[in-house]
Structures are given as structure tokens and as C-alpha cells.
């Protein structure tokens, strides 16, 4: 405990308090939007215009600039959802529960985008919209896990119990994450192997890699923006009877 500076501890306690979170996220939102727009603009310009066509796949490969970042986000958001779910379960931090459940629809969206853009890329390149290959199947299971979390949360009226149930489901589903990641190495899949995360020497040209990384970063900022939007509404609904929401409502009325 002595190792953590006082200012960090204070920041943490402030952020875990719903009214502070509500006010703070409103303040940083414009900056997040500006960074997101700049990153997306640069990423799309680099990916769709500057980068050359692929020598094998022609221009069809340009789907990579949304397909791969979406697939990365589908895994990343799932981990955020499971970890904040576990934090909520152990320490009963309301904000952690809110972040966890607010992540689910965004994660499901990115999983859906990864699957559909993969299909739209697979048709011209593989000659089929879909195969039951390990990578595609495990990613589809991820979508069902997200939908399961959303459905379970909606089905339980007491949101405290709902959060606990959902956290357990999310934690169990983490098993699927390494399966998705290593599926292209463990099984002989139609899906191609990793080209970027081979850290020693990525087998992708730098003019294609830079826009891909820009888009990956842009999607991270999109997630932050969408997460803040959703979590603020979720927080309002959960805290509707608390003093800070009542005060805000009476101020709005005037």
C-alpha cells in the first residue's frame, strides 16, 4: 500500500464514486471524440488510399482495416467485461458492475462486425461465406457468450443479483479467449495465421501496418466513447433513487 502514491489512491476513490464518474466522463468526452476522429481519418486515408493493393488479394484485402481491429476489440472488450465483472463480484464496486455490463453490447457489436466482414472477405478470397473452421467457430461462440450475458442481465430484475450472475458467466467464458487466439496455430484452419503479432518480424508491409495500427487505436477510443455513453445511462438507471441523481433532476427542471 505504501508503494501507491496518495494521488493515485485519491483518483481511484473519486472515480469509483458514481457522481464523480458521471461528471468526469462528461468533461473528457470532447477530447476523446477529437482523438477518435483524427485517428480514424488518418487510418482510413492510409488504408483505403495510400496503401498499395495486395499482390495476391488485390483491393479486397482492405477489409483488413476494420476486420482485424474489430476482432482484436472483440477479445479485448471481453477481457474488460470479465475482469471488471470479477472486481464487482469480489469488492462489490458498483461502477465495476456498470462498466462490465455496459461493455457487453459493444463487444457483441465488434464480434458481429468481425464475423460479417470476415464473411465478406472470405467470399471473394476463399469462395465461401462461411466454413466451420476453428477460428470462425470459436469467434461465433464468443458472440453467443456476449448475447448470453446481455440476455441474462435483462432477465433478472434485481440488478445486484443480475450483475453477479453475469460476472460468473463472463468469467467462465474466458476459457474461449485463448482458444480463439491460438485456433489458427492449434488447428489446420482455412483462416490465415497471424501476420501482425509475430513480433520478431511481422509479415505485413509497413505501409499497410501503420494504417492497421491506427485503426486498432481508433477502435480503442471508439470503445471508450461508446462505453462512457452506455455506462452513464446504466448508472442513472441504477442510481435513480440516490441523492445525486435527484439533485441533478431538480436542476434540469428549472
Amino acid at each position, binding site marked *: 500500500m505504501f508503494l501507491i502514491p496518495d494521488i493515485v489512491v485519491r483518483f481511484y476513490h473519486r472515480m469509483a464514486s458514481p457522481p464523480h464518474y458521471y461528471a468526469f466522463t462528461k468533461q473528457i468526452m470532447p477530447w476523446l471524440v477529437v482523438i477518435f476522429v483524427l485517428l480514424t481519418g488518418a487510418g482510413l486515408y492510409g488504408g483505403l488510399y495510400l496503401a498499395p493493393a495486395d499482390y495476391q488479394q*488485390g483491393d479486397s484485402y482492405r477489409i483488413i482495416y476494420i476486420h482485424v481491429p474489430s476482432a482484436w476489440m472483440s477479445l479485448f472488450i471481453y477481457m474488460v467485461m470479465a475482469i471488471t465483472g470479477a472486481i464487482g463480484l469480489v469488492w462489490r464496486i458498483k461502477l465495476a458492475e456498470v462498466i462490465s455490463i455496459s461493455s457487453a453490447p459493444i463487444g457483441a457489436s465488434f464480434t458481429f462486425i468481425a464475423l460479417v466482414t470476415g464473411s465478406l472477405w472470405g467470399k471473394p478470397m476463399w469462395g465461401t461465406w462461411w466454413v466451420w473452421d476453428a477460428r470462425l467457430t470459436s469467434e461465433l461462440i464468443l458472440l453467443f457468450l456476449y448475447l448470453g450475458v446481455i440476455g441474462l442481465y435483462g432477465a433478472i430484475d434485481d440488478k445486484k443479483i443480475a450483475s453477479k450472475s453475469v460476472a460468473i458467466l463472463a468469467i467462465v467464458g474466458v476459457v474461449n479467449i485463448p482458444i480463439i487466439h491460438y485456433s489458427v496455430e492449434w488447428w489446420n484452419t482455412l483462416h490465415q495465421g497471424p501476420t501482425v503479432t509475430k513480433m520478431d518480424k511481422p509479415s505485413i508491409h509497413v505501409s499497410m501496418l501503420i494504417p492497421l495500427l491506427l485503426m486498432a487505436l481508433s477502435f480503442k477510443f471508439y470503445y471508450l466513447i461508446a462505453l462512457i455513453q452506455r455506462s452513464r*445511462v446504466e448508472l442513472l438507471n441504477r442510481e435513480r433513487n440516490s441523492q445525486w441523481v435527484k439533485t441533478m433532476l431538480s436542476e434540469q427542471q428549472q
Partner: protein
Amino acid sequence: MSFSEFLAMGGYGFYVWTSYGLTLVVLLLNIIIPVVQRKQFFRQSLKQKRK
């Protein structure tokens, strides 16, 4: 490169632009839905208060 060449994407225009269009729609929905829910929350809360 002309604009129509850019749109054609070397013959893969349908696949590329459907991918990008669909992504745009899904990502926009994720922003719009919370805004609508927020407005709903304030409308309902203020209505309940007046009762």
C-alpha cells in the same frame, strides 16, 4: 487514380464497401441508442416527479 476507380476497388467494391458501410451502421447505433435511452430516462423521471 480516378474516383470511380477508387470506388471499384479493383472489382471488389461490393465486398469492401458493404463491410465499411455495415461497420459504420453498427458503430453509429451503439452511440445513438444510449442517447435515446438517456432522453427517455430524463423524460420519465421528470414526469414521475410532477405526479
